[in-house]
């Protein structure tokens, strides 16, 4: 799958890049294409573009807090939200679970 994601945590210096790295690594190992945006202490890094969204299967939000620029995604692709620490601890499990959920939803429609 093509997965886009946004990682964001309060200070934005540690958990944010860690979650982004962990998810990217795990996703690619599982055979997916990953693009992780970070929202944190250094502003927006690796921002997800309209082009990215057009070819993505779903958005994974690795965060418990408010995400900026959500209007980019409205009505476009499924959005899943997971606690950021869970993404750092078990990135493969998170991705597998999300992929499963998205496929299940697609089959419903």
């Amino acid at each position, binding site marked *: 799958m093509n997965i886009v994601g946004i990682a964001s*945590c309060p200070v934005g*210096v540690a958990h944010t*890049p*860690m979650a982004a*790295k*962990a998810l990217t690594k795990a996703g690619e190992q599982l055979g997916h294409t990953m693009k992780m945006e970070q929202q944190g202490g*250094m502003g927006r890094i690796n921002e997800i573009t309209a082009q990215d969204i057009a070819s993505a299967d779903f958005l994974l939000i690795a965060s418990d807090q408010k995400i900026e620029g959500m209007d980019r995604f409205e009505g476009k692709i499924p959005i899943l939200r997971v606690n950021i620490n869970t993404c750092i601890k078990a990135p493969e499990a998170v991705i597998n679970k999300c992929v499963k959920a998205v496929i299940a939803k697609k089959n419903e429609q």
Partner: protein
Amino acid sequence: MRTSMPENSTPLETILCERYCFLDEHLVSQEAVFAFVGEQAKQLNLCDDSSQLTHDLKEREKEQTTGLMDGIAIPHAKSASVIHPSIIVVRNEFPISWETLDGAPVQHIFALLVPEQQNTLHLEILSRLATNLLDDDFKRRVLSEREPHQLSEYICKKIYEGANK
């Protein structure tokens, strides 16, 4: 993202050096760790108000635990008391109770001190430490190195290498 370091400055040594490494402490709790970091930061001129820093570390911890896995924690705070970004390393002789992702107690603390005003390059350096901690080889080395000088040099080297990736 910036991928180069300024030529004539030595930003890494102001962020982490052997004097910022305390490798055989006997702190009894997470609270004691935050108080210790506040104290040492003040003595090292990294912050101008130790109780403010300690308070800010506690507040950030309440929002979301900084305990990771394998006995590592990365407490950090953006604080008005921080004079410039830095890393304080604390290794405790015995494990301390701490809420962690894997349930294990904490013995290796990497405290990240972040000033309120934005300075992207320095924040990037702190981030690189955090992401390096996801790497098994890096983790193994920093958890076992006993010499403050070797440890700070190794961490600075890996962080600098990250600049060129």
